């Protein structure tokens, strides 16, 4: 055996099980869902199902689906943006400023919310955001007579809850990217006369871009499919396509329509990333 064939076998042997696992647990169910989305009735009905495009037609025939889709994407955008605005500076401070045990302690605090159930976290927010809630009482005690703060069942409440849920993804991915940047590169920039801001803009930011992109993808994709957080925190103001998809499975028992809507959402995500990725990669590569 030549070294190359041996390497090839080694790669196959080492990665094969993982790919087989992925194929069985991810690819097959998704393929089944894709097939389902072209059927005219759910497999629960004893009658034989036949091929149809009606489920996809329903999306294009009913304008309320478009509104829901647009709102879902907007929600994904806002949550990703705020996660970046809060998460990136936090990751920067952690990677470049905080050292030693403090870093471990702060990391623990960031990961801590993951240890509790997502539903519990969201319900906790309802106690914070409502009138007579923690924020409201705090405001009243500092500024007596201030107008009541009642954020529950508003759009900002949904954004706050989702940013809190997904912020750790942004911090962790940005942290890894920022930590990998050699400090001597920053020093070189400074010693060549660049201001702190220019060094950040020309050296640090481009080099940490992969972290920002993966963090954004990790947040944007689940957020536009979210249904639990908008329902609990948004009241009637948190309508998303994800909620409608969930209902097709649990209430209407129209699995094919639910599957078709899911794939439309997936297609939209792929298109958005298809447009953004080459652009972002070029930005990153130019540095």
């Amino acid at each position, binding site marked *: 055996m030549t070294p190359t064939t041996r390497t090839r076998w080694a790669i196959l042997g080492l990665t094969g099980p993982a790919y087989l696992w992925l194929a069985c647990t991810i690819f097959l169910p998704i393929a089944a869902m894709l097939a389902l989305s072209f059927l005219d009735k759910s497999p629960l009905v004893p009658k034989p199902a036949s091929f149809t495009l009606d489920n996809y037609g329903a999306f294009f025939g009913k304008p309320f689906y478009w*509104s829901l889709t647009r709102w879902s994407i907007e929600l994904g955008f806002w949550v990703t943006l705020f996660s970046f605005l809060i998460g990136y500076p936090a990751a920067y401070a952690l990677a470049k400023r905080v050292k030693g045990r403090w870093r471990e302690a702060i990391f623990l605090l960031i990961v801590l919310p993951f240890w509790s159930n997502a539903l519990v976290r969201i319900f906790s927010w*309802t106690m914070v955001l409502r009138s007579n809630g923690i924020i409201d009482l705090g405001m009243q005690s500092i500024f007596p007579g201030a107008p009541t703060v009642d954020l529950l069942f508003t759009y900002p409440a949904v954004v706050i809850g989702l940013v809190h849920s997904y912020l750790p993804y942004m911090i962790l991915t940005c942290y890894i990217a920022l930590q990998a940047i050699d400090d001597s590169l920053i020093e070189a920039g400074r010693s060549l006369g660049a201001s702190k801001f220019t060094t950040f803009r020309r050296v640090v930011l481009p080099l940490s871009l992969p972290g920002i992109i993966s963090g954004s993808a990790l947040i944007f994709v689940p957020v536009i499919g979210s249904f639990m957080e908008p*329902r*609990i925190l948004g009241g*009637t103001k948190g*309508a998303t396509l994800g909620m409608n998809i969930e209902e*097709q*499975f649990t*209430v209407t028992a129209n699995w094919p329509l639910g599957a078709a809507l899911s794939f439309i959402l997936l297609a939209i995500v792929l298109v958005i990333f298809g447009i953004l990725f080459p652009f972002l990669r070029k930005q990153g590569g130019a540095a």
Partner: protein
Amino acid sequence: MTGKTRGGKGSFGNVSRRRFVAGASALGVGAGLTPFLSRRAQASTEVKVLNWQGYGTDEAWALEAFKKATGLDIVHEYYNSESEMITKLQTNPGAYDVIVTNSAWNGRATELGVIQPIDTAQVSNFADLNPSFRDSPLLNVDGKTYGVSWVWGITAVAYSTEVYKDAPTSIEALWDAKNAKRISIRDDAIEAVSFAAIATGQDMNHPSDLAKVKEKLLALKPNIAMLWSSEDDWNKQFQAKAFDLSVYWSGSALRSKTNFKLPVGYVVPEEGAVGWFDGLAIGTDAPNAEGAHKFINYMIEPTYYVEWATKVGAPASANPKAMAALPDSDPSKAFYSDEAAIKRLQFMAPLSDKERQDFSDLWAEVKTEYAK
């Protein structure tokens, strides 16, 4: 959908289980043989019941008492959704004796021929049942009884007794301009459409004018504070005074009042409200039809009901004698004894797949407008 103790169980878990059942029917040979064999072996000492888990028929003390009285063993199999029940009846014909069927599903099971007419002469407590349920066309087809009414409940209007000194009498209170941002309804297409249909004076199950229903629901927008999703959710929000008036389930309202001490009042508006009831049916070619009749009779008898209601908590019994036998301290006694209110109810009937989808689309459209 139905609004009883087990109302909250309808979620993802069920669906996957249902799917499993559908898949398992491919192995129908094995599934079909088992009941056949057991039928031969224990034809007369066993009664097989198909029901939701923890819904009255499987209480250990009741099964013991029943065995003592009749010598029959009760064996259970459970379903997690009504469509799963139908699937089970279709894939295992002749396997079940007693089946708990909802008023909206009994007719479907009759139509599919998976349940058989009941010999009411063998059910001595049958004559005592409230005629509103007993003689309902939802349980009786062509003069034959396919289901013995068992328990029932209401989906009507709950209100805060702190805000309302007198109970609101009209369903229009929900639309009243002075209730801006003070009302709540459940995030459920069928319930929302049913209520709007009642408010516009239509048949709740098959509203002829869906455009009117939609208009009525859209008119609710300024008043809606939130859409509730579960009993627990409702209690939390009500306690936090998020709303004063809400479409709510009777059993849950009773629990909110007695268990959680919330200031909840409950009223069936003069225009009517949604009613549901569960029947007890006998499977086609039931292996032990005689035992099934005995068990059904036991299930509607006052002694059993009183023990169930006081020990565990139960929906209202369809047997007025059973309700009368409840201790006077039991709050559900007075609550469910208003005959005039029962007369105003419209009962949930089977919906076609198309109606289900139309209601769901209508509700999705309305919710999209709410969000704007």
